[in-house]
């Protein structure tokens, strides 16, 4: 319906750097895995509906 649109814009994604562009000494993402895991603690025990 007219007026429904929220004029939201798709966010520009600059894309990943090429492998050679990775700054030397940048933090290894493996070192962040504990922090990454903690973000999902609430969900790991959630049972989802059976889907297809």
């Amino acid at each position: 319906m007219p007026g429904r649109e929220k004029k939201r814009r798709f966010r520009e994604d600059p894309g990943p750097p090429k492998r050679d562009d990775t700054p030397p000494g940048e933090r290894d993402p493996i070192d962040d895995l504990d922090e990454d895991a903690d973000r999902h603690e609430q969900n790991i025990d959630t049972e989802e509906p059976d889907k297809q």
Partner: protein
Amino acid sequence: MEHPRKRPGIAMGTETEHSIYAESADPSVRRNFNKAVDALVREAFDSTQFMGPQVDRSFGGGFTQFLHNGARLYNDIQAPEYSTPECQNPYTMVVHEVAGGKIVEQAARWASETLGYPLKIHRKNSDGHGHAYGCHENYCIRPKLFKELVRDPVNPSQTVMATFLIVRQVLTGAGKVGVECHDESFPFQLSQRWDFCNQFRANVTRTNRPLIQTRNEPHANAEKWQRLHYIMGDANMCEISTYLKMGLTSLMLMLLQDFERASYNLPTFMEDVEHYHRVGQVISWDVDFVGRPAVEMTQRTGSDVVLAMSAPEILQRYIDRLAEYVEIRPFRDERERTIYRDVIERSQKYLGLIRAGQAQELYGTLDWPTKKWMLQRYMEKKGQSWVDATRDEYLQRRLRLIADHAYTWLDSEQGTYFKLLRAGHITKLVDESEVRNAVFTPPPGRPQLRTMVVNKLLPSIVPGGIDWDEVVVPNPMDPGKNWTIKLQDPMLVVNPLMRGLVEDSTNVRQMEKELKEMVRLQSMKEGL
């Protein structure tokens, strides 16, 4: 091999049921999956960029709509499901699947703002508690092969295709921590989905999931095309895993379609087909490929040869056959052959590494090796190993959090897959510019024509009047009745004549009639 008649390839697409979590301290909010999914799809439907001119229309209004890029987004059993448009080669297919992830991610961000709590979206296949969701694959194949593959009696095409679908997980498995639904204990397995396969063949998707799904909904002219619906594949994050999954499977189907005797000399399992799902599970759990399932090969002479081969060895036989086939098949154009040749060359290279015991070299290329060696490095930094993972419940939980939740999180800033990508650990297949284009525009072929017709006929289209193979408008000559513009060839090529016809037409009936004739002539030239 005999030389086949020149034919089009196979249109393909995926339907991904995303996992959705509402982040809230209130359990009633967390359990209200429908509210979260409805909010997400409504945000997408409110976006001019995703919907094109349709956005201001009042038709539809339900929780399923076609997007401007030819895809379909909907609330399917409390999951945001994204069906890619039908694509005519596996490369385009990957571009559109990645674009779908971007759309769902963006819509989830908008919905989070509206709802006032974050939504997390994942591309995975289970919740770790015995509940599964799919990443279904669709392949438009000829009716004769469709019948062979889904109907009684069991025949060589069925057993060959089923064997291929089981062993392809060596390359395409998404990788998973632990085992669900079985009294087995493995710290890591190849596939997320095989734990949920319970039978050989059936027309069900939510319980007792089959290896061969018999659904018969062609969304096309059923005399020329049927849609094979394969439901046991994994939802992949690595673009190359998806590429090989769709590329090898569509090429196998083309081979079976083109050659009556394609199944000769290809190994199949010795077990009765009713036990094939168990074979698939055992192979998924055997991530180091120690076991060697018994297989038989039917020779051209008619004698059976029984062999013991590992899953990678069986897959090698199939890929070798496809490598021969890709060189002789008369594809529509050389770009198509180049893409399929690339699928084969990559498969040969990666399978060679796996067979040489060097699967760790595929960290960052394919999903299961990426997950396995990501977790291994994580454990090594803590002085732990896979042996610890078999007996330490806390460690198992941490590994599940990392592989099944953090890695699969569709958040391009915080998801672990995307962090690995930014750090240069992940090898991409497609360009970001192609993905961005696919967010807004349909791929070549029927989706392109469908979107053109939809744009042309707005605002006349009746509520719910857009489907994969038709667009419905009211009949101005007969109030209360409708006209249907049929789009029944999923492999059609949009040519300048068709484009001009749709753009310039002022008479729907005439447009429908002329389009039909143009598509008929095109099919006839290709011998369909």
